[in-house]
C-alpha cells in the first residue's frame, strides 16, 4: 500500500461502517439535498448534532451501502467531488469518513 493510500485504522473503520449499514442502520436517505440551501442545512446539522460521532454522521448524511439514483442521476461516492479515489475516503470536512465507491449519501455532488 502506498503512503497516500488508506491506513489500517481507516480500513477498520470502513469495515465497521459497512457492518452498521448492512445491519440496517436507519439513515436519512431522503430527502436528498436538492438545493444549495438544503446542503447547507444538512451541513449545519452535521456540525451541531454529529460532531465526531460516526453513527450520527451516517444518519444525518443519509448513507447507504448501495448507490441511490435520483432524477436519472446515480449518486455513488466514487463520482462525488469529496471522494478520494485512492484512499477510498470522503473528504467533506464535516464527514471525513472512509467509504466504499458504491456507497451513497445525500450530500453527493459532482
Amino acid at each position, binding site marked *: 500500500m*502506498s503512503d*497516500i*493510500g488508506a491506513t489500517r485504522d481507516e480500513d477498520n473503520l470502513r469495515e465497521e461502517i459497512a457492518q452498521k449499514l448492512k445491519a440496517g442502520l436507519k439513515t436519512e436517505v431522503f430527502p*436528498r*439535498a*436538492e*438545493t*444549495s*440551501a438544503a*446542503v*447547507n442545512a444538512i451541513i449545519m446539522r452535521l456540525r451541531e448534532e454529529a460532531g465526531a460521532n460516526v453513527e450520527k454522521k451516517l444518519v444525518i448524511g443519509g448513507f447507504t451501502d448501495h448507490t441511490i439514483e*435520483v*432524477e436519472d*442521476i446515480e*449518486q455513488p461516492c*466514487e*463520482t*462525488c*467531488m*469529496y*471522494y*478520494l*479515489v*485512492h*484512499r477510498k475516503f470522503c*473528504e*467533506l*470536512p464535516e464527514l471525513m469518513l472512509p467509504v466504499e465507491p458504491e456507497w451513497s449519501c445525500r450530500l*453527493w*455532488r*459532482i
Partner: protein
Amino acid sequence: MANLLWLQGGACSGNTMSFLNAEEPSACDLVTDFGINVLWQPSLGLELGDNVKTILEKCISGEIQLDIFVFEGTVINAPDGTGEWNRFCGEPMKNWVKKLCDAAQYVVAIGDCATWGGIPATAPNPSDSEGLQFLKRAKGGALGENFVSKAGLPVINIPGCPAHPDWVTQILVAVASGRGGDLTLDEFQRPKTFFASFTQTGCTRNMHFAYKVSTTAFGQRKGCLFYDLGCRGPMTHSPCNRILWNRQSSKTRAGMPCLGCTEPEFPFFDLAPGTVFKTQTVMGVPKDLPTGVDKKGYMKLTAAAKNASPAWAEEDIFVV
C-alpha cells in the same frame, strides 16, 4: 500628446488605487514615455472647486481637446432620475458625463461600476445606478445603446472589481498612441486581447480541475476551487492567471475562488445568503457549468476523470 480626463461617480476609488499600482506600463510611464497629459484625476489632480469646473467646461467647448475620457464608478440617477445624489462641480455628475462623452475622442469605462453598474446596481439598486453603456447584461446604460465617441468606438469597457492596473494602462497607451482603431471588442465591449480567455486559463489548479479533485477549505494548495467553493474561473472572461496581480499571484493561486468580477452579473445571485463562496447546485450538479459544457457532458467527463485520477492529484504536491 493626448489629453486625458478621469472622473469618478458612484464608486469606492478602488480602480484609482489599482491604476496607481500599474507596472507595465506604470501610471508615471503614461506621462513620461507615452505622452499622456492628465488634465485631472480625482486622486492626482491639483485643482479644486471652480478650477476643476473650468477644465471640464473647456473640454466640453473644445477649447481643450479631450482625447480620452475615463470614467470610474456608476452613473447615479437617484432620486427620481435627477442624479442629485451625486453632484460634482455644481451639477449632477450624470450631466457632466453625458457632455464629456460627447466631446471625447475615446471613452473608457474602468471597473464594474462604470461598465455595468457593479455592486451599487445590485438589487434593489437604491441609487438607481447604471454603467455608461450597460446595466448589468442589458445594453443601454447612461449613454444609450447607440452611443459612439468621436473616434467611432463605443465605450471601451475594462471591467473588474477592481480592474487590473495593467489592463487599464495598456489600453490607455493603445488609445493615446493612435492604435485605438486596432482594438477589437467583444459583445460587452471588452478588449478581446484581455477578455477572450478565461480566468481559468493559466490557473495552477487546472490539473485538479481535470482530475476532479476539490479544495474543501480556503487557502488549500491542493484541489480545484470550482467544485465546492464557488469559483467562477471556468466561466469568467479575464486574464487574471495570465497577467498576474502584483506580477506574482492571483486569487485562485492564493486559494481564493474567482468571484467572476469581470462579468456583467457580478455580484452573482444578488449576494443572497449562502451564495458567496459556495458552488450552487441542483441535486448535486453545479448550477453554472464551465462555459460551453452541458450537464450530460459534464457528468460523463467527471465520472471518467475521477476514475482515471492519479494518486498524486489527491495530495498536496506543493511541498515547501
